[in-house]
């Protein structure tokens, strides 16, 4: 019901604008055809009035006001014959006399009567009106359009204009081509001008940028209106406004031209479907534009990326590290080892004052530390002291875990933080957990046996384990489809797995059984990730949303909706207050856990994004996609600050080293590449002026930043992990061809 009402309201709006549109269209038509108005026998109204009347007629017909239609037709002296002839004439004889809705309406009418367009359109019109109102609101706005045969003319006119402007403006205005092309094509298809649509596509489809070619291939398969209805991605493209960033000068040029030429069709499309974000500054060069474009909805508006993001890290809790022989005597603050090598030190040194970029401790509720967590932290700090310092001269060693006999079924891998367990998710819906260390995996004893052990003994934690079940490998059965995402909890108690069956399962690593199945996505869940503090986890799937869950709630706590296509990669920020999601619509969004708002949109990839990594200091984000590039983003300013070219295939694994000095990327081209991230982040200057324009000049220094390329024989790299001592572990499934 709501849809119908909306449809009517939209029709109302259309009615208001329609007379203007058509009158403008008329003047345009007369301008372009440069022919006198072929009026019928004297006393007929002018072209403009004719068009207006026809518009009103259409509206009345659509609303089934057939009596009014008759009266109007009688009084205005219009007959159906005249309608079609007038429009035909005004079209300059081009095409099959197709004209606005009037003709498409009338041609529908003529089919049942199988004669030249006649009147008494009542039943057919009623049916047509019903159809139109039934069609979703989203598509109905397409009915406002001009003469389809002139689309090619408009487009070529624009093309000629853009080619004639100054070089500096040309690159910016060329951004218009793609969205205009798609919208005009879709309008033609919607109004059933199939042959014209095909001709339009053939003529101008090849001109578009190469990174849009995949979309265009899908588009050229859509030739009928029915195809449009089922295609969610296109409907979203239609409703969300394509964002273009154009400098003020170029925009003035464009506006002046369009208003001179009365190319109102294009102007309408721009006003309705495009959002032009005007900035003051130098017009951008082609390479700058290319680096940021590529997503479904154009670029991101600048004000979207202006929200303050707390990208700092949370304060580490102060823990007493028991002094033993290894640690130095001289410790200045509690729990701080003398050798300051880790990120915690930088935070600890400011422990007296609050980092302005860090969120409050209690901004989101976080679980408090248990005793076992404190013990873990002590272990962690001890390991940190033994960490290898990495730099361009001192590259990490790489240990590669190849999965044999996986028959291309390995779909997800994860390591625990202390690198003791390795889990693999497979296409046969199993999850297999291996122990990386010589220590075997054991299950907890049953309740009867647990009653019998001595609870006060020192090694109670070993006694609760059942020796009979010790094995290297544990297989977890339960999912109903391939497992696409895996994530260990930071305290090594739980493992999460997300699968094509739409559920996310929580497994206990003490009993190796499934504890909970979180149902919410009803479509494949492509990725899941535990928060760095445990308790929360995020999952993203085919239903285009990411959900935030807590392990003790069976329903999600937050739903992050906004992407135009599947969410393929989800990651928590190190301070657990933000979630980054990468999607098939080639954008990366950063969401605030507190209120579910999208705080950053990063565009620039030319393919679906499959990997994300936050730098350990929380300031930067690296992303990899099917186009083989790694892009680096400054979260605070919301800008792209680096582009790492080198891989030739999809990048599925990205990881920063423990101190953020090296970025490792693994890809389907069987290589692991190491990049110098300190240099990449240092080179960037982000002052307020450049930040205001929304883009920063990118140095083309991928070659300098590449520290090493390491090939495996024929094993694509699925996962990367830096141990606490900065040894790089890689995992992938050996494919024998």
């Amino acid at each position, binding site marked *: 019901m709501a849809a119908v009402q909306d449809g009517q309201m939209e029709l109302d709006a259309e009615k208001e604008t329609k007379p203007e549109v058509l009158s403008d269209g008329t003047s345009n038509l007369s301008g372009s055809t440069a022919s006198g108005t072929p009026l019928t026998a004297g006393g007929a109204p002018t072209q403009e009035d004719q068009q207006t009347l026809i518009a009103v007629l259409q509206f009345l017909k659509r609303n089934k006001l057939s009596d009014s239609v008759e009266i109007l037709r009688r009084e205005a002296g219009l007959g159906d014959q005249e309608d079609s002839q007038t429009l035909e004439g005004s079209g300059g004889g081009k095409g099959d006399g197709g004209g606005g809705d009037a003709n498409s309406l009338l041609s529908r009418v003529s089919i049942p009567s199988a004669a030249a367009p006649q009147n008494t359109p009542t039943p057919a019109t009623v049916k047509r009106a019903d159809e139109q109102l039934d069609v979703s609101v989203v598509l109905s706005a397409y009915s406002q359009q001009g003469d389809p045969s002139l689309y090619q003319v408009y487009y070529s006119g624009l093309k000629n204009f853009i080619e004639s402007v100054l070089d500096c403006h040309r690159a910016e205005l060329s951004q218009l081509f793609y969205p205009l092309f798609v919208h005009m094509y879709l309008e033609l298809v919607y109004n059933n001008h199939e042959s014209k649509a095909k001709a339009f596509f053939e003529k101008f489809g090849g001109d578009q940028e190469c990174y849009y070619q995949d979309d265009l291939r899908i588009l050229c398969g859509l030739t009928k209106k029915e195809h449009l209805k*089922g295609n969610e991605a296109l409907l979203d493209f239609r409703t969300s406004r394509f964002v273009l960033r154009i400098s003020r000068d170029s925009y003035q040029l464009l506006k002046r031209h369009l208003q001179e030429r009365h190319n109102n069709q294009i102007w309408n499309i721009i006003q309705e479907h495009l959002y032009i974000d005007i900035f003051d500054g130098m017009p951008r060069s082609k390479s700058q534009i290319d680096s940021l474009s590529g997503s479904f909805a154009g670029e991101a508006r600048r004000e979207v990326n202006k929200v303050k993001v707390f990208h700092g890290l949370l304060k580490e809790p102060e823990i007493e590290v028991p002094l033993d022989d290894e640690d130095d005597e001289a410790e200045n603050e509690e729990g701080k080892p003398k050798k300051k090598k880790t990120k915690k030190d930088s935070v600890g040194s400011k422990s007296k004052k609050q980092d302005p970029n860090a969120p409050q401790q209690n901004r989101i509720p976080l679980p408090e530390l248990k005793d076992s967590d404190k013990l873990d932290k002590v272990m962690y700090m001890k390991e940190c002291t033994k960490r290898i310092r990495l730099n361009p001269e001192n590259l990490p060693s790489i240990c590669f875990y190849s999965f044999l006999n996986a028959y291309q079924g390995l779909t997800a891998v994860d390591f625990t933080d202390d690198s003791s367990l390795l889990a693999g998710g497979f296409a046969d819906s199993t999850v297999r957990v291996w122990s990386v260390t010589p220590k075997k995996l054991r299950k907890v004893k*049953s309740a009867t046996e647990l009653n019998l052990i001595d609870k006060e003994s020192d090694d109670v934690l070993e006694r609760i384990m059942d020796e009979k079940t010790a094995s290297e490998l544990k297989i977890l*059965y339960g999912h109903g489809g391939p497992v696409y995402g895996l994530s260990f909890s930071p305290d090594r108690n739980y493992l999460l797995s997300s699968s094509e069956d739409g559920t996310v399962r929580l497994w*206990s690593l003490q009993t190796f059984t499934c504890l909970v199945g979180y149902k919410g996505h009803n479509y494949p869940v492509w990725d899941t990730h535990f928060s760095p503090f445990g308790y929360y986890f995020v999952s993203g799937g085919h239903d285009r949303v990411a959900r935030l869950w807590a392990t003790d709630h069976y329903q999600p706590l937050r739903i992050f909706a906004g992407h135009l296509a599947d969410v393929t990669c989800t990651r928590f920020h190190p301070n657990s207050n933000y979630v980054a999601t990468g999607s098939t619509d080639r954008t990366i969004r950063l969401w605030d856990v507190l209120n579910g708002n999208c705080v950053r949109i990063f565009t620039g990839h030319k393919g679906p994004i499959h990997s994300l990594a936050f730098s350990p200091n929380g300031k930067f984000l690296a992303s990899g996609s099917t186009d083989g590039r790694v892009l680096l983003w400054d979260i605070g300013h919301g800008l792209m600050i680096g582009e790492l070219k080198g891989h030739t295939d999809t990048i599925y694994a990205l990881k920063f080293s423990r101190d953020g000095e090296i970025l490792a990327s693994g890809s389907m081209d069987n290589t692991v590449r190491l990049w110098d991230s300190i240099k990449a982040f240092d080179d960037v200057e982000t002052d307020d002026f450049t930040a205001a324009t929304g883009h920063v000049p990118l140095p083309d220094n991928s070659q300098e930043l590449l520290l090493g390329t390491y090939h495996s024989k024929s094993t694509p790299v699925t996962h990367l992990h830096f141990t606490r001592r900065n040894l790089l572990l890689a995992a992938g499934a050996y494919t024998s061809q």
Partner: protein
Amino acid sequence: MASPKTVPKDAQVMMQILKDMGITEYEPRVINQMLEFTYRYVTTIIEDAKIYSTHAKKSNVDADDVRLAIQCRVDQSFTSPPPRDFLLDIARQKNQTPLPLIKPYTGPRLPPDRYCLTTPNYRLKSLQKKVSSSAGRITVPRLSVGAVSSRPSTPTLGTPSVQTVGTKVGTPVSLTGQRFTVQIPSSQAASVKSVQNVLINPSLIGSKNILITTNMVSQNSSSDSSSLKRKHEDEDDYDAL
């Protein structure tokens, strides 16, 4: 790939579709899968259309029937994710509630038991039948468990042996489709009957609601044998597992 001469025409059409959509590398099985899907889909639609046309008492199947068949199937099998505005709406609603506070350490943080997979999703009903005092009567109960088919086993507490089943009051029992031979000691004729209470997960119970009856007899002897008499509800469920 087979040479074009020996490839049937339908397969050639599939190869052409893949080529048109720009897919150049694919396993040969993909063609077979596409053919199978097409055949299955088309026959389903045509069968449905035939049903609709006979229902409308038409002699032939015409385009309207096919259209109706397609429409009905689309809503069933080819569902697509909800539209964007709907998602934005529910996201807005969901995101308005503040994040719940976390209770201090309360053991593993899991949802309420009915949403977890940690306990069996069936309950053992008490059997009010009097225990017969005839010694040596051995019942051979058969077990049928309905909805716990594909789940991994819950933490097991003692595997049931052939002779007796060792359980304690109030503990969940993992029941697999096994045969139990139960001995009813005659000495326990006049004993207290208690109902074994196991948590039930109605959300996880499928279409077959199996209630398994038991007669839990508590004993005071050291031997931990108790008799459990199980009444099978549906014979054929055991085979259907």
